[in-house]
């Protein structure tokens, strides 16, 4: 499989107007990924699947990731004049990272045996614009997994044939896998008598819960 930059150029040529950028992966596995804008995602996916030398005919994994708003502190090397002498200083620069919901696709080619190519789609924010293009028309394996991301993260997939909650029951309101999800305290909880569990249980079962 060629390096990501080559794939990026070819995809850019194949799908004009698609904003594709490489997202580096610092881990040892060096599985970097390509970020695609939701508008052109389906076209890029179709090219990746049908192009002869790629043939990514198998979408193995669709994952939702929640990136809440965060202040990132990164050490940056600066050359600054300190009392007249030019010296290297490492200072912490704070950068505000806007919150967003991200969907990650791991693509493999069963026919040619290479992969994984990792596609990422990001939503604009975590509150109202949570729309992303669904890749189910291209790979049927994404159907259930996209429904699960919709159910647990709240990402709306446009073009999904049957977007309903898959794991939680219909009446459930919230999205449990988000980082800021507060566990409801009201559902039937088995009181075991020790420390915070005990406290929580006492609120529920004032009489019961011995020990």
């Amino acid at each position, binding site marked *: 499989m060629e390096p990501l930059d080559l794939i990026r150029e070819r995809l850019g040529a194949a799908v004009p107007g698609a904003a594709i950028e490489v997202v580096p*992966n*610092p*881990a*040892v*596995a060096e*599985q970097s990924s390509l970020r695609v804008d939701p508008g052109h995602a389906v076209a890029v996916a179709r090219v990746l699947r049908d192009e002869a030398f790629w043939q990514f*005919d*198998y*979408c*193995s*994994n669709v*994952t939702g*990731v*929640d990136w809440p708003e965060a202040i990132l502190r990164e050490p940056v090397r600066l050359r600054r004049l300190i009392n007249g002498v030019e010296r290297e200083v490492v200072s912490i620069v704070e950068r505000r990272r806007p919150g967003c919901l991200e969907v*990650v696709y*791991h693509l493999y080619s*069963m026919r040619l*045996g290479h992969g*994984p190519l*990792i596609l990422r789609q990001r939503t604009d924010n975590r509150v109202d614009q949570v729309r992303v293009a669904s890749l189910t028309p291209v*790979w*049927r*394996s*994404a*159907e*259930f*997994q996209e429904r699960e991301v919709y159910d*647990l993260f709240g990402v709306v997939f446009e073009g999904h044939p049957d977007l309903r*909650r*898959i*794991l*939680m*029951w219909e009446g459930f309101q919230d999205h*449990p*896998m988000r980082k800021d999800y507060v566990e409801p305290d009201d559902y039937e909880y088995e009181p075991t008598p020790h420390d915070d569990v005990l406290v929580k249980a006492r609120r529920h079962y004032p009489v019961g819960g011995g020990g």
Partner: protein
Amino acid sequence: MNGGLDERALIGALSTGDLMPESAGAAIEEQRPPDASPSGSATRSPAAESVRGEGEFLEVSLGPHHPSTHGVFRVDVVLDGERVVRLKPVFGYLHRNHEKLGERGSYLAAMPYTDRLDYFCSLTNNWAYALAVEKLAGLEVPERAEYIRVIAAELTRVQNHACLIGFLLQEAGAMGTPIMYAFREREKVLDLFESLTGARMMCNYFRFGGCRCDLPPGWIEQCRRVVAELPRFLDEFENLLATNEILMARTQGVGVLSAALAVNAGVTGPNLRASGVNYDLRKADRYGIYDRFKFRVPLGAHGDVYDRYMIRVLEMRESVAILDQALAGIPEGPILNPRSRLRSFRPRAGEAYGRLEAPKGELGFYLISDGSGSPYRYRIRPPSFINLTVLEDLCVGRLLQDAIVILGGIDIVMGEVDR
């Protein structure tokens, strides 16, 4: 329509495709997706015949409390007589939000929870998680630990396939006998796991960079004895039902899955190889030390339930071959990478996706680490959950009895489907 309608109406409840000679009624083009029609059998496709118009459909929900849904799994079935018109699976009855649990505790704390994913194959779940973390942190695994992992995984594959064959034949109606033979062999394998890891099903045995403890003395001889007896069990199974006319009639040509639909719908494992696609992660991904062992990958030609059944029997024979080679070649040496830390294990920031050939298909773990002690994002790619995508395509137009056998053929475990 010809005069035979009233007579057929009487038996219409069974609306059998090939009961009566070719009725003169106009064969109405079937509404189902074209590639799911049974290619092999010569009978007219059943769905076209069953469109009679009068009499509304029967809406039944199979499960979650049903004898053959492999756990708490519900299927909303719309029946025309006994023929399935629409089939919607409903999940979530065993949903424990396993991924949130994984993100709450440390990397080590998530390991015992992976036993509870596919509770038939806890050792392959452990290995998949350990594989992903080793890919994330870049840990090497010593030689002896790799051999132990291959032996444990192949033993798990044998007992999982044995269980599946037992359940599938139980659903086809052979009450109790095949499942008891399968469980008799499974008990021997579980005793091996208990003497090795301490627990029969919830092993929690692999660690990042190797195994938790070494093989107890005499375990390899015991394992060799068990593996030596497996072929006898497989022959007994093939004599019992493989060429049984009733079973062949019940499973051949039923639930045919075309190779194109299988690949596109992400079906993996024996179900995919039964449709003729040569994709086995042990050969494709070259993880662990599988490239040192000589074993073959059985491929089906028709992609129906009979092929899925036979592929699993043949895979068990291949696993026995691997086990013989691995047990012969296991070296002495350390079983845990000295660099791997048990408690405060903090991999560098980044992400990794590790996957392996679990008995049910491709089991993958996707981990995003932010440098802290617990994973930022802990995602499981469950094979049985995604294999169910094609359940409706296989069942529409067939009898209710076929739908149950097809569901049995796909081999799902609800712990892994609902997570």
